[in-house]
C-alpha cells in the first residue's frame, strides 16, 4: 500500500514539474509549485502511517510544510502583483532582467 501512495505522489510531482517548466503565466507557475509541495506532503503522511518506524512525526512535518507553503504563496502573489504593476504583464517571459 505504501508504494501506491508514493507512486501517486510521484505522478503529482511530475505533473507539477511539467506545469512549472512549461507554463507562461506566472500564476500558473505558482500553482504548479503548490502542487509539487502537496505531493511531498502526501509522501510524509504515507510514511507516517506505513513507514519502517510509524510515528506522528511525519504528520507534524507535513503541518510545518503546509504553513511554510502558505507563507511562500502569499509572498509569491505579492511579488507577482508588484511586478504586474511595474511591468504590465504576468508573463514569465517578460521577467528576464537578470539575463540581459
Amino acid at each position, binding site marked *: 500500500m505504501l508504494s501506491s501512495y508514493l507512486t501517486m505522489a510521484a505522478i503529482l510531482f511530475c505533473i507539477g514539474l511539467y506545469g512549472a517548466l512549461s507554463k507562461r503565466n506566472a500564476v500558473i507557475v505558482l500553482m504548479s509549485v503548490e502542487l509539487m509541495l502537496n505531493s511531498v*506532503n502526501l509522501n510524509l503522511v504515507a510514511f507516517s502511517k506505513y513507514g519502517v518506524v510509524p510515528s506522528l512525526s511525519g504528520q507534524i512535518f507535513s503541518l510545518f510544510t503546509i504553513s511554510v507553503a502558505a507563507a511562500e504563496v502569499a509572498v509569491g502573489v505579492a511579488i507577482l502583483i508588484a511586478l504586474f504593476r511595474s511591468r504590465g504583464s504576468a508573463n514569465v517571459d517578460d521577467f528576464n532582467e537578470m539575463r540581459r
Partner: protein
Amino acid sequence: MGGFYIDWSGELVAFFGFALVMIVGAVLMLTLTKVVHMVASLAAVFLGLGGMFVVLEAEFVAFTQVLLYAGAVTILLIFGIMMTDHQAVQREPVRPGHEIVSAVASILLFGILFYAIRTTEFAPSAPPLQAGTDNAMEIGKQLYTQHVIPFELVSVLLTVAFIGAIVIAKKEAE
C-alpha cells in the same frame, strides 16, 4: 473476493477514488485554457488530497489541508489572477521545443522515481500507525513538547512573511 492480484479493501477503493479525482484535476489544470478554471481544478486536487489524508488516518492534517489549501491558497491565487490578467487565456506556446523538453524531463523524472519505488524493499516491520482515535490531541501534545521551537519559528516566519507580502504589494505612495 474478486480482484486479480490485489484484495479490494475499503482503503484501496477510497485510494483509487481520490487518486482519480486528483489526477483528473491535475491534468485539467494543465490543459484548460482559462486561468480561473485552472484554479478550480487545482482546488479539486487539494480536496482529493485531503480525502487521501483521511484515508491515511491523518484527520488533523486533512482538515488543515482543506482549510489552508482548498480555502486560503485557492482564494489567494484567485485574487492574484484578478489583480493581474484576469482575462488571461493561456497563449499558444512560443517555443514548442521548450515545452517538449520539459515534458521529456518530467516523464524521465517520473520513470526514475517509479523505478526507485518499485525496486526498494521497505522493511515490513512495525504494524501501521493507529493514530485515528485522538489524532488532533496527540499532534498538539507533540507540537508543544518535542517540536516547540520549530513551532514558534514557524509562527515568526508566518508573521514576517505576511507583513512582507503586505509591504511588497502595497501601492507606493507618490
